[in-house]
């Protein structure tokens, strides 16, 4: 019985298929996931909700994962240093830019069933692929280290020693990956990601003047005062807190590992949109939560790490400060899980070895070794005395934003490649939006470089 919907035309010459005898453990797991999708599609009641439950994952995880410890601290610094004004829309608008990017990423993964690193190596060769991987490795490693700094900072509010906090965070990262099943890993990560919403009650406890918030979001004012370089660093930092290379690599690989297909693109878009919306609200909440520091004339310079929770306690109370610290720990933990997964996926794709969370550890040793090794190395860096973590923390988001334009150009070239994408190539609107994002990022980068050199 031919129960499957009409198969799409396979654009690629490699898409010849494989015999059932060649199916692996990974394929069977993925088929079991598709079985659930087919059942949901056949359901007479609550079909959209059931489908959303099955497909929510890569989009939400990538956006809430990007609301990581350095990002939340960047947003909090923004609120503490400049209060309610120009920077609120500067926090929100990049999420719209990120949606444009991540939607293309999701589509590319669903159509090609290949990860981003694999496609860059295949289509553009080792030379360009190596550059892309070098940028990813550098950015991922520094960001990963900052996640453990965030966990350490959040845990310090509860009096947990740095070594213990980082050790426990590593245990959580390792435990999540030992499930041997993408679906289980994804649901655990989503449960953790839900804690990102804790920043919303914290913002409410800060009692921001809502008329000023809505005014700032509409008018982009009042404009910030101070050194141009400081303002540009914060703009770049907020941009890098929302659009980063690891997001592209992670979401595409996660979409492939989840087994999404071209007919799932619409629901994949919904997943990405939900993730964007939640992350934008939580990012805004982190900034608003820290505005009491600005309103009471406190210097934000002293609170660049974990001291935000302590500093905010007089205004948001013990409960608010505790939620802020827990939110910071969650932000670091979730990002450590997703970023280390993005590194492992990319290495597995490039080395052409097993690269799926559907494999048990013993059957995909190189994949899990990279996953665990990158997390362990980053955690180790945080515990080395005298490493300039504050200096790294200041630039990690900026670096992410600066490294984004070539990643985006590769993405644009791939998503416009008709041989790969068939009729799912970008339309003009998507191309225009993506090119605008590249131009904005390059211009911001050049402005930052100019201000750095003349200061």
């Amino acid at each position, binding site marked *: *019985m031919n*129960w*499957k*919907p*009409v*198969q799409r035309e*396979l654009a*690629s010459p*490699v*898409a*010849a*298929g*494989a*015999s*059932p*005898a*060649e*199916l692996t453990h*990974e*394929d*069977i797991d*993925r*088929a*079991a996931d*598709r*079985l659930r999708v*087919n059942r949901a*599609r*056949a359901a*007479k009641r609550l079909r959209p909700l059931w489908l959303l439950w099955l497909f929510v994952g890569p989009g939400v995880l990538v956006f809430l994962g990007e609301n990581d410890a350095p990002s939340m601290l960047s947003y909090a610094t923004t609120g503490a240093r400049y209060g309610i004004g120009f920077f609120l829309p500067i926090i929100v608008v990049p999420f719209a830019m990120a949606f444009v990017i991540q939607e293309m990423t999701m589509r590319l993964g669903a159509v*090609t*069933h290949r990860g981003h690193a*694999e*496609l860059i190596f*295949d*289509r*553009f*060769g080792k030379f360009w692929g190596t*550059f892309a991987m070098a*940028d990813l490795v550098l950015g991922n490693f520094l960001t990963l280290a900052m996640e453990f700094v965030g966990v350490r900072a959040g845990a310090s509010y509860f009096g947990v020693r740095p070594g213990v906090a980082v050790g426990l965070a590593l245990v959580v990262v390792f435990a999540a990956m030992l499930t041997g099943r993408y679906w289980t890993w994804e649901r655990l990560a989503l449960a953790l990601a839900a804690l990102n919403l804790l920043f919303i009650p914290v913002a409410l406890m800060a009692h921001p003047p809502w008329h000023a918030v809505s005014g700032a979001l509409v008018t982009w004012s009042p404009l910030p005062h101070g050194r141009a370089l400081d303002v540009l660093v914060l703009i770049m930092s907020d941009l890098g807190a929302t659009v980063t290379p690891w997001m592209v690599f992670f979401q595409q690989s996660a979409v492939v590992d989840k*087994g999404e*297909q071209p*007919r799932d693109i619409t629901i994949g878009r919904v997943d990405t949109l939900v993730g964007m919306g939640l992350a934008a609200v939580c990012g805004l909440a982190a900034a608003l939560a820290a505005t009491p520091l600005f309103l009471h004339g406190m210097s934000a310079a002293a609170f660049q790490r974990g001291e935000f929770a302590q500093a905010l306690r007089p205004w948001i109370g013990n409960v608010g400060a505790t939620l802020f610290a827990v939110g910071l720990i969650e932000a670091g933990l979730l990002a450590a899980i997703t970023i280390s997964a993005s590194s492992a996926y990319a290495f597995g794709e490039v080395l052409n070895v097993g690269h799926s969370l559907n494999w048990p550890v013993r059957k995909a040793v190189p994949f899990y070794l990279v996953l665990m090794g990158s997390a362990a190395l980053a955690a180790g860096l945080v515990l080395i005395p005298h490493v*300039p973590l504050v200096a*790294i923390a*200041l*630039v990690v988001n*900026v*670096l992410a934003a*600066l*490294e984004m*334009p*070539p990643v985006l*150009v590769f993405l644009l*070239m791939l998503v416009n*490649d008709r*041989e790969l994408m068939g009729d799912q190539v970008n339309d003009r609107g998507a191309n225009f939006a993506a090119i605008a994002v590249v131009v904005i990022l390059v211009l911001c*980068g050049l402005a930052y*470089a100019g201000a*750095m050199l003349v200061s």
Partner: protein
Amino acid sequence: MKPEEKNEPEKNAEWERSSEAPTDREELERRPELAAELLEPDQIVAAKRARFGRKPLKSWERGLLWALRIYVIAMQVIVAIAVIRALHGD
């Protein structure tokens, strides 16, 4: 809406009621042909061993990639300067 999209839930429902429909992962393991049908042909791990071919880059594409490569390296140097300055308390 295309006809095949319109009919998809009905097709799936019909299959769900049929004796051919697998019930769980164990059955998919026993009957891999059903598992293969649930996946797209190029989604199967064995099919992914074959790589996509190289796409010849046009000269403007190559120029753009080089320009962005130089941009990233220059920006990385500037970021390194920012870190050094921060370390020295400038």
